[in-house]
């Protein structure tokens, strides 16, 4: 596995981290600051847990695809 | 009954000298100038002894020697190899192919005659 794709992986993870930070902070968060229920669940909680789950899935996707163990970083 | 000698060599002058020497000893002499001729002469009648040159056109001396040794009915024919290549390897090779003795050119005529007589088991007169 070459340097380039190892670098690419790092860049994807960094982008994911930044995107997650933005999605989980002000001002995006203020859009869901409502005391309402969606599907029986408070909309703020629903949003946060969904974003959270999506981030975890994406980490899994990036980490578990492509490179073999023992690769360089 | 005179002994039968076959001389095989492609150098005419050498053949001439050998022919003289052998006839003088009272042997019957036949001549071949290459390997094929030599085998033809063998088929005709197996001689008691062959003086066989190594470097000849059409089947060299080793091949002829090997062919003769492969035939049961020719096992009594003595073979003396003559070679101008004086290296040990050649000697070894000749003996390995089934030659009985080996003479390096140029040879001393007296020695050659003695060797032939010994080979034919004729006591020195």
């Amino acid at each position: 596995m070459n340097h380039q794709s190892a670098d690419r992986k790092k860049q994807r993870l960094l982008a994911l981290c930044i995107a997650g930070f933005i999605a989980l902070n002000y001002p995006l968060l203020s859009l869901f600051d409502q005391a309402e229920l969606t599907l029986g669940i408070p909309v703020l909680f629903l949003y946060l847990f969904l974003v959270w789950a999506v981030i975890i899935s994406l980490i899994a996707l990036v980490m578990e695809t492509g490179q073999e163990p023992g690769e360089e970083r | 009954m005179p002994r039968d000698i076959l001389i095989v060599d492609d150098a005419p002058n050498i053949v001439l000298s050998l022919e003289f020497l052998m006839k003088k000893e009272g042997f019957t002499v036949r001549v071949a100038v290459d390997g094929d001729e030599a085998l033809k002469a063998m088929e005709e009648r197996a001689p008691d002894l062959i003086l066989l040159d190594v470097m000849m056109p059409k089947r060299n001396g080793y091949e002829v020697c090997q062919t003769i040794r492969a035939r049961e009915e020719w096992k009594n024919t003595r073979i003396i190899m003559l070679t101008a290549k004086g290296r040990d390897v050649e000697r070894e090779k000749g003996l390995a192919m089934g030659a009985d003795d080996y003479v390096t050119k140029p040879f001393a005529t007296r020695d050659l005659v003695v060797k032939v007589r010994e080979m034919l088991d004729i006591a020195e007169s």
Partner: protein
Amino acid sequence: MTLPWEWVVPLISVAYLGLLFAVAYFADMRADQGRSLISNPYVYTLSIAVYCTSWTFYGSVGRAAVSGIGFLPIYLGPTLMAAIWWPILGKIIRISKDNRITSIADFIASRYGKSRGIAAMVTLIAVVGIMPYITLQLKAVATSLDVLVHHLEYGFSSGHPAAPWGDTALYVALILALFSVLFGTRHLDATERHEGMVAAIAFESIIKLLAFLAVGLFVTFGLFDGPGELFQKTMADPKLKSLMGFGTLSGGYSSWFSLTFLAMMAILFLPRQFQVLVVENVNENHIRKAAWLFPLYLLIINLFVLPIAFAGNLIFPGASADPDTFVLTLPIFGDQQWLALFAYLGGLSAATSMVIVAAIALSTMVCNDLIIPAFLRFHLQVQEDLSGIILTIRRGVILALLLLGYIYFRLIGESHTLVTIGLVSFAAAAQFAPPILLGIFWKGASRRGAIAGLLAGFLIWAHTLLLASFAISGWIPESFLTEGPWGITWLRPYALFGLSVFDPITHSIFWSMLINIGLLITVSLFDRQTAVERIQALNFVNVFEQGARGGEAYLWSGSVSVVDLKRLVARFVGPTRAMRDFDHFITQHRLILPENGIAPSSLVAFAEQRLAGAIGSASARIMIHSIVKGEELDLEGVMRILDQTSQVIEYSQRLEQKSAELEAATRQLKQANTRLQELDRLKDEFISTISHELRTPLTSIRAFSEILRDNEDLPTEERQNFLGIVIKETERLTRLVNQVLDLAKLESGLMEWHPTEVDLAEVTQEAIDVTSRLFENRSVTLENFVPSHPIILTADRDRIQRVIINFLSNAVKFSPEGSGRVEIRLREEPAFIGLEVKDNGPGIQEGEHKRIFDKFHQVRDESGENKPGGSGLGLAICQRIVDHHNGRIWVESGPNLGATFIFVLPLFQPEKKEIAKKEASPSNR
């Protein structure tokens, strides 16, 4: 229920700890057998979940009950950080393995020039900063124990529990200290990873997750009719409805932001997280799975926080029960004593795992970076085995830490919630982030910069959070908070320099990070690094680059004997272990070392690393320094070595570039070698052939001479005949010898040449005359097309004539006797002269065209009967003569088409080479 709960609960607690110890013991046993239980990403993930302490277990619910979603950033932050574990944590782990780093203090100290001062400082910050966190666990365990026993005994009749607080906490502290000692320092070897401990905390992570889920499921589906009903009822309560949004979150979005950031740092840089993530890591590739499994664990354990919090608020309105204990009180309320007990065990798991790991991590730091350096200062030359002493020190430190935690608890315990105490520790750990993160990516970060940043950050933290919490507990006057120390208002802890827009945590984080990072960068930019700093900076930043590891070996240029080195290491790790390690290293590197010989620098570096594993890098460096005679390299020396290294790298790159050319050259060499072998074979053949060719006439001569000698009575005629043969063979021999000599001269370049103006027409005519008798003898016709006018060129007359004679005599020899027909002609061209001799003989086969010019190569006719009486050297000599005149010689023929031998000579010799190559091109002269 009539069980004596005040006895049952403590007994079960101790039994549970016993079970943990069994797990650890089993894991250690397996590790000794080489069948590690923990060497997989799942156990690694579970061990990282030591992050979830009793703060998570009890405190999250408590916080959610008061401020809704506000507990969540503490778990979102680690998720975001886990996304970039692969590049960051991976690098930290690799560095730590390369340098045998055993703690976060060791890591920072090692990065900044193996400085003892910085190691001690980090240790102090860690101890002071983490103390509240340990206190938090003591408080949680003590409270949960008391609450559980109280409510199990008395139900909810008598309101708040009134248990003997202090005693419980003290016992808890002592028992946890005992277990930490058992887990962390069971081995005599002080340097190994703690497999048993990791297995135990992974086990605890499962227990606490299951316990929390069990309570959550019971509360949501047992006490209520699913989350739908629970949330509906909460919405219906106007007081609780506000918990659904951000309204109740103190500090609002800025607090949310800073907590996320804080948690991101804490997951990496809390000493216990560093311990499990880095020090206890078995395989870097475990990060791959842990990076998403660990966030998943966090998500799952947080699913029921809000339902439990809301349920607690609905069931115990008006704070009739401490929200921090909802996890226990709700099952008891639902009459599920055993579930409550299980929940309690989950909380105990969360607390004990944190305490055990933190205690071990901190004790390693305190021992290696504070006590041993001080100890060595006074006992530098002590020769006895210190490994036992080191372990004793560590045990003492663990006990002391937990007792300190207890004292802290006595001081401030009751006035704070679990979460607030925890966040204070988080803020302290965050101070380590700048020197580490900048340190592994920026070579320029210097020791003085790191010290300045850490010190300032720590002081701000202490002022704005620690001292402030003392003030809140009433341990120091409250005016400290409201008016500032000594009445200096701009030093008020919650409004430093008058900044009062943030909540206390955000406020502290803002200032401490700003100053910490600012000083680290600024001081570094104006600093000059020492040699050791520079090398360590390079080692850390370039850890993934090949060759980076070699740097360590350059550090020591002095001399020390192998036996001294071994003795030193043995003092700290024990003699058996030291012997084993040295033997291993020596075998691995194929070193041959006499005991009293000088240790090579690689061995010194190895010993230093080995020591670093036991007592920390800073102390290790001092110890090595104490026995190595001679100086460390100065900066110039180091730079020189680095320069050489880079030169070597550059050189090897150039070599790589050349490798293609080298391969080509190798191919050429192989070809040349094949040709040489062929030539060698030809030489042997040549000697063999020449021997044969010379011996054949010699044989005739000798034979006939002897015949003439031995037969005096030969007839005269025969005698004449034999003598004639002798003479003829002698002539042949002479000719042969001459030819061989000629050829030898030609080949060796010793031949003397006599180039003159030559009339080629005349030379050719003369050659025809010389060979006319041969033609007559064989009745071969010669057709002469040689022009009568002179054709002048520069050449060696005799040699050229020899070539022509050779052509003619060959033609005669191979032409049929009687019907033979040979043609000879000269061709005049502007730049060259050609000569052709054509016969009507059998011709020469295509494959022979080149070979007939080889030495001793004799052409025989088809029947082979007529051996032409040549030596086989004639044409070879011709070719060399023509070559010398820069001409060309060849034959054109086919079977039964006769053969035409041709040579061409250039007319003008000076530009001979050009002309010879391009026969048809006109002369420019």
